[in-house]
């Protein structure tokens, strides 16, 4: 029998991979020449594929998004029904590892992987990582999710692969300067970007090497999503099983097994919680001993693998539940303890004018970090390159990977919704057009003593030119010059002024973050004094 299931898996995972790569490479390829309709439909397509990622659905629960609940339940029900099919076809990291294995067997011609890597120490590590991850369910321990979630890791990796991004990180140059003003290389600090790039590349390299040794090492020893789904896949209603009557214990089925150790030839058992449904074993078996069958039939014919207990790789129910509750308790307590700390830290940052500006719709740091998983799809989507990746900008290790606005790199135009539209978790609240125009995300500070108008007695006005709200007004300064007069009440913190300010090395006008994003009132417009000419041609 030709292996229809395997073919289906490969076809589906191919489609998913193309869509995920599309979601991250989207803007480079399509932004310049496509029509609005094409862009919008592509947008929806790419958004839906990223919204189907397990951690994204969990994070969406924080934002009260209905698809969060729906998605979480759907994935769990699918897992209960068919085992870890999610890991087989929906997870980009899983697909990537399968691809590495494909390269190894087909190109490097190394068939057999080493004996599955497993030890009690690795299991311990896995439990700890799972506790860290489940802490996110209650509160925002963003960094653990960003570091552990396969989709987030893969998203960042795709960002690094992007040639535009790479150029930018390496040289501070962008190939396509959409904002018009461009990156002000002299004042733009690329060092922190190197840090993120290095972390991403190293993590990805380690996963690749591990995958060359043991195909899905990451999935079985690190991935918290794998841990959760593995728990739900213990007894799938329709799953793979070994017919003990037919099995001759030849071991042929283990040759290309993605689970590495889900097949226990000695006991003629298949561990469904470890099996990632690669279906490779199905047509390898010469005796048709491996089948997909309903759970009822399996129990009739077989003893459950889990009954054999400790030998197996997956966490026992007790281990899983205690780790989960540990994580939830740790998350709750740490969020309660850290709440005041975080507030104080933000207050201090705001007071010192070094608070990073958060992307529009992120409300405040506490809310933002509870929803953002650090996939950096928004960073890729930003047409102005203003959205950047933070290291320690927000203060503290736990807020690493959160995006922030770097106004030396670009400006956050009040008509642009790309990051909001790209965000799959709802960490960036959807704003209406008229809201966005008056949505205050930052505050402005002007330093007249280093402004070119003051120091060189030359005309400039670049900041006033770009100010969309009239918070910067150019007023008379003698000698035919005008000087900016800045009123923070009407500033929305778009950073256009800082971006375009020609003063080096430090800008004469700086925009920094506020503790809480909010809607402000529009500046009232003064009386109209039109230009009136007495003659028909006044020259």
């Amino acid at each position, binding site marked *: 029998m030709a292996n229809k299931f395997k073919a289906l898996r490969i076809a589906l995972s191919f489609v998913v991979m193309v869509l995920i790569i599309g979601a991250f490479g989207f803007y480079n390829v399509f*932004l*310049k020449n496509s029509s*609005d309709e094409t862009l919008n439909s592509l947008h929806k397509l790419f958004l839906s594929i990223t919204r189907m990622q397990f951690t994204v659905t969990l994070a969406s629960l924080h934002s009260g998004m209905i698809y969060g609940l729906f998605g979480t339940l759907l994935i769990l029900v699918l897992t209960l029904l068919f085992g870890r099919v999610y890991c087989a076809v929906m997870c980009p990291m899983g697909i990537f590892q399968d691809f590495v294995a494909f390269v190894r067997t087909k190109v490097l011609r190394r068939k057999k992987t080493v004996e599955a890597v497993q030890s009690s120490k690795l299991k311990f590590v896995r439990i700890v990582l799972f506790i860290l991850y489940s802490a996110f369910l209650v509160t925002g321990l963003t960094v653990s999710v960003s570091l552990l979630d396969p989709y987030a890791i893969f998203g960042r990796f795709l960002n690094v692969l992007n040639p535009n991004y790479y150029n930018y990180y390496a040289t501070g*140059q*962008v*190939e*396509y*300067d*959409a*904002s*018009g*003003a*461009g990156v*002000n290389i002299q004042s733009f600090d690329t060092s922190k970007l190197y840090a993120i790039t290095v972390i991403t590349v190293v993590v990805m390299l380690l996963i690749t090497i591990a995958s060359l040794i043991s195909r899905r090492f990451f999935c079985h020893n690190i991935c918290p999503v794998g841990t959760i789904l593995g728990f739900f896949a213990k007894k799938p209603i329709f799953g793979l099983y070994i017919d003990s009557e037919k099995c001759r214990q030849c071991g042929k089925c283990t040759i290309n097994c993605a689970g590495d150790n889900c097949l226990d030839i000695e006991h003629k058992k298949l561990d469904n919680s470890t099996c990632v449904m690669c279906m490779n074993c199905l047509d390898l078996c010469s005796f048709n001993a491996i089948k997909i069958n309903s759970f009822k039939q399996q129990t009739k014919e077989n003893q459950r693998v889990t009954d054999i207990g400790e030998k197996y790789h997956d966490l026992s129910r007790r281990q899983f539940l205690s780790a989960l509750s540990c994580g939830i308790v740790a998350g709750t307590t740490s969020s309660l303890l850290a709440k005041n700390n975080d507030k104080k830290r933000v207050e201090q940052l705001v007071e010192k004018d070094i608070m990073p500006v958060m992307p529009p719709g992120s409300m405040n740091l506490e809310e933002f970090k509870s929803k953002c998983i650090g996939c950096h799809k928004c960073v890729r989507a930003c*047409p*102005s390159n203003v959205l950047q990746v933070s290291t320690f900008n927000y203060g503290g290790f736990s807020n690493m990977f959160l995006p922030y606005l770097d106004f030396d790199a670009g*400006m956050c*135009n009040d*008509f*642009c919704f790309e990051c909001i539209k790209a965000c799959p978790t709802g960490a960036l609240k959807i704003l209406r057009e008229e809201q966005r125009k008056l949505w205050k995300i930052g505050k402005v500070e002007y330093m007249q003593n280093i402004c*070119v108008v003051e120091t*060189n007695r*030359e*005309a*400039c*006005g*670049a900041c*006033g*030119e*770009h*100010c*969309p*709200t*009239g918070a910067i007004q*150019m007023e008379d300064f003698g000698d*035919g010059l*005008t000087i900016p007069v800045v009123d923070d009440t009407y500033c929305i913190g778009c950073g256009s002024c800082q971006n*375009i*300010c*020609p*003063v*080096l090395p430090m800008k004469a006008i700086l925009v920094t973050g506020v503790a809480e994003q909010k809607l402000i009132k529009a500046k009232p*417009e003064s009386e*109209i*004094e*039109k*230009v009136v*000419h007495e003659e*028909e*041609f*006044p*020259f």
Partner: protein
Amino acid sequence: MERRDFLKLSATASIFGSLAWDAVAETVTKKSSTPDLVAVRNGSIKSMFEAGLKEIGGLPVKGKKVLVKPNIGWNKKPELAANTNPELVALIVEAVLKAGAKEVVVFDHTCQQARACYKNSGIKEAVEKAGGKIIDGNDKRNYIEKTNKKAVTLKSAKFHKYVYECDYFINVPVLKNHGGATLTCAMKNLMGIVLDRRYFHRNGLHQCIADSVLYRKPDLNIVDAYRVMFRNGPAGRSVKDVQKMKFQLFSKDIVAVDVVAAKLLKLDMKKIEHIPKAVALGLGNDDLKKVKIKKISLKA
């Protein structure tokens, strides 16, 4: 005198002679018919454009590559008059093609996101409909380094390569008030063919604006003053900043056209320093008494 020297001398003489003859011919025709500056008012955009173009002597663009450089700096709708009127740009593109040009290219190095600016200004659609080609003004790879010894401050800068590829350059600014430079019109519009605008602001805006004209002087300037932003420029905040003046200016003299534009906005001439600076560089004439102006008032 050897034969070689004789040949050299005669060749040089003939070149100079022909040049001189051209110059004489030009002044003769100028004196006879064509005005230096045409100001048209009180018509529709189309009727004003047709009348003005006829007076300035049409477009000598047969078989040429033509660059039309409007202002597409801002993501604003046409009614807000932050960008050149798309209708006028389309009319120019059509006229240029009608005059037998090889190709018409339109671009601007935008101040805000290029895609949004090109679209919402209505210019991309208008140009494509009229048969012109709209190209990217924001791609760094399209810019080439140029130097000019005559320049006072802007000794070298990166210019869009098409500015040097084209044979005929039509500058189509929109007249606006400007918070920093007081006026933005023909000369200021050339900041849209330069890559690094911060350099201008950092090193004396007015001098750099005047210097930038040295690199490639437009062959024709057509100023859109149909809707004019008289305050909060150059981006503007609402339609309240805009008034309908219903003017169009045509001139080969980039300085004279800016002087007239400044008078339309009733601006203080002393503040617009790039005008005297451009005169000092010999780029044009700011004394309107010496400029032959043709004034046309159409009946609406």
